[in-house]
């Protein structure tokens, strides 16, 4: 009996090893919060364990998993509503050690992504980072494929504007820092 039990554990372990990172990245890009993202990944695997009988064989696993992932997130925010007003500057993800060292452009792009309205951010994250087809995203969101495509396009447009705004802001900041630096004696 223990062997059968270990078998189930081992198999779910294989799934976990393969999917924990993409799922974690999905939540990080969506919420900007690493701790919360880890909690949600844990919740998703708990639900996979609990509801694995509802998986319809013959369908792709990934969309099924993201359906669970989206529900887990919705349920979480229903319980803890105040946290939804996420201020990107305040969120821990901005202090990413890996991003901080990366070039500034990537950091700005990440910030711009976090500033997008939630539904635009989600459609971009799902289509760009999670290996899902537009058809599968449409199924997840319960809408037409064309609607998904329009949303992707609009989200990109908005991201471009936000990103450009941030770039201008940081360039101006650099410029003022630069001028401050050239006359260090002026304050004395």
């Amino acid at each position, binding site marked *: *009996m223990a062997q*059968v*039990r270990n*078998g*189930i*554990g081992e*198999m*779910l*372990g*294989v*799934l*976990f*090893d*393969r*999917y*924990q*990172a993409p799922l*974690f*990245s999905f939540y*990080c*890009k969506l919420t900007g919060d*690493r701790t919360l*993202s*880890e909690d949600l*990944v*844990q919740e998703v*695997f*708990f639900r996979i*364990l*609990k509801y*694995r009988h509802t*998986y319809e*064989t*013959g369908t*792709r*696993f*990934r969309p099924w998993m993201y359906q669970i992932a989206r529900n887990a997130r919705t349920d979480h925010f229903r319980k803890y509503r105040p946290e939804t007003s996420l201020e990107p500057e305040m969120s821990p*993800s901005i202090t*990413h050690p*890996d991003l901080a060292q*990366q070039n500034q452009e*990537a950091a700005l*792009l*990440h910030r711009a*992504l976090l500033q997008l309205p939630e539904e635009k951010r989600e459609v*971009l994250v799902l289509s*760009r*980072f999670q*290996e899902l*087809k*537009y058809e599968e995203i449409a199924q997840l969101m319960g809408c037409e494929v064309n609607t998904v*495509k*329009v949303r*992707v*396009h609009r989200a*990109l*447009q908005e*991201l*471009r504007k936000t*990103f450009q705004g941030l770039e201008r802001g940081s360039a101006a900041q650099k410029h003022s820092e630069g001028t401050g630096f050239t006359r260090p004696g002026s304050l004395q």
Partner: protein
Amino acid sequence: MTMTTCEQIAKLMPDYLKEALHPDQVGLVEAHIQNCAECREEAVLWKQLGSLPQEQPSPALRSRFTAMLESYQEGRWEKSSLASERQRLPLLSSFGRWFRMPAMAGVAWACVFLLVGFLIGKSVSKPVDSPDQAGQIAAMRSELKNTQTLMVLAMLELQSPNERLRGVTLSERGDQLDPQVLGALLHTVRYDASVDVRLAALDALSKYGARPEVRKGLIDSMQDQQSPMVQIALIDLLVDLHDRAAVQQLKKFRQDPSVNPAVKKRAEWGIQKLS
């Protein structure tokens, strides 16, 4: 030629970005973004997004998962044994009353000794699990099978050939395969991009050659095979299974000028063996 407008391009752009656009239309989009800065920036932005790093969870997440898995299984375990415990209790307490009645006590004790003796005899002669435990084992076995099916199917759709290979290997555990897994393995033999994965799936399926649907799937998959190695492995397996229905496909191999000479030779040998 009229210039395509940004609005027209906006409809094509999402598929273009996913590299899912029809080749005829790719040129249209590319010509447009040469001249239109806004649309070009959209495509550039998509590329830049792809270079954002994938956040990695801390190693603690794995240990949390293991702990959760264990406690979940323990929890289920205790819950099911508790339920059967509770059902048994009223029976025991009524039995207990007999012992307190002087007239009945002797009979009750006799019953107990008889029962104990019977149980000892039974356990010495044939150590079997109680029906309860056997039921639990059966339930867990079916759970294992469900999980195996879920996992094999999930692994087979991964991008890395090594992981798909692992999926095929995991499908070979256990004695009976779910029809869905058989279907997925047949699909793998036919369409997987990696020769190694196709060969492994073929190997896993060889055990199920007695099933007509497997043999039919294998014969069907012959027409899509490009790799001589897989073609030869398929011929060998079908000859091994004595499936005459394969002869027609083998003749096609023999006639097709694009087929590797070694495969033609093997097909010839197969035709002789089967007819």
